[in-house]
């Protein structure tokens, strides 16, 4: 398969077949927490794509040139999470300076990207799946895209739900989960996709 085909395959798999939220259950807290409005969902999604791509880059380098050569694989969790925490701190400072309105609307959810399982998850998965440097970066990018896609779709649905007549007990999170379940059902159709 040609280079382009491989990249395309990776993209389809990362965004649809192995969607981080709907098949792997990663990134659920922000998915439920930030998906109430389309604007904040898009902003959050962009931030997550950026952090996931950068995190994939740096954690891959750390694994390749620090942890493996010195037999320090057991320090993977600590090293990765500290890298991610620093990255998020950096992103926070940058957004605060360059787009203060976005900073305000994301609020407390921005530092929470550190605890977004999707970011740590993709970093670990890149190593497990034996991706090389380019593969790791692309996987981070596409998985982030998949997350954002589902997040924005969810926000769109929830904005509509605000106007629908939902039973009292289902309002808020319960209906969000059931809707997520229906989306997951749809995405289940992608599994078994093979080129």
């Amino acid at each position, binding site marked *: 398969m040609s280079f382009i085909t491989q990249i395309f395959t990776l993209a389809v798999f990362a965004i649809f077949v192995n969607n981080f939220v*709907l*098949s*792997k*259950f*990663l*990134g*659920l*807290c922000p998915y*439920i927490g930030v998906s109430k409005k389309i604007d904040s969902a898009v902003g959050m999604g962009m931030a997550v794509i950026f952090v996931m791509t950068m995190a994939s880059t740096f954690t891959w380098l750390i694994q390749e040139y620090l942890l493996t050569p010195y037999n320090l694989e*057991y*320090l*993977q*969790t*600590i090293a990765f*999470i*500290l890298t991610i*925490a*620093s990255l998020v701190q950096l992103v926070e400072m940058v957004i605060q300076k360059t787009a203060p309105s976005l900073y305000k609307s994301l609020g407390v959810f921005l*530092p*929470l990207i*550190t*605890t*977004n*399982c999707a970011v*740590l*998850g993709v970093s*670990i*998965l890149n190593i*497990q799946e034996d991706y090389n440097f380019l593969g790791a970066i692309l996987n981070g990018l596409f998985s982030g895209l998949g997350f954002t896609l589902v997040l924005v779709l969810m926000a769109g649905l929830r904005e509509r739900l605000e106007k629908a007549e939902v*039973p*009292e*007990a*289902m*309002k808020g*999170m*319960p*209906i*969000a*989960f*059931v*809707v*997520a*379940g*229906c989306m*997951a*059902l749809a*995405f*289940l159709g992608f599994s078994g996709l093979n080129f």
Partner: protein
Amino acid sequence: MKLFKEFTKGFIKENPVFIMALGLCPTLAVTSSVENAIGMGLAATFVLVCSNIFISLLKGLIPDKIRIPCFIVVIASFVTIVDMVMYAYTPEIHKSLGLFIPLIVVNCIILGRAEAFASKNSVIPSIMDGLGMGLGFTLALVVIGSIREILGAGQWLGMNVMPAGYIESPMLVAILAPGAFIIMGLLMATINLMKKKQGA
């Protein structure tokens, strides 16, 4: 008596999963069987209690500005210890839980309790808080896991509990991703109903 309150609040009133909606990722991922649910719950409880102890002990020494990274290092260390010990002594469960063992480090419950409680209280209450929250988490996982395993495979802890005909073709969706979401949503709705009835 106050100590006991710190312990029991994690079970119902401030249950991390159902009431505070924390720790959602592992909740949906590992509850396809009760065995995995118990494994994850206990592993997380261990990490929670240990990190609460250390963070409570070190609370005077950690400067406020870098407290989050310090908490993270402490939590990550215990997660790595649990990971290695499970890999060595319970390899089957380690395999089923897979990626979600290192992901305990980003379980909002643990960081949340470190920030909200352990960094501001002494050791014994922190232990109680950690135990209570951890076991409350485990309880929530087992409840969800039981529903999913019984509906989706007709079993509970690997033992058949539904008639043979059901086991032949169970409601598979319950152990797959969509089922997890839907069951979670319905459970939360049920709890909302119960909260309303109590007038809470």
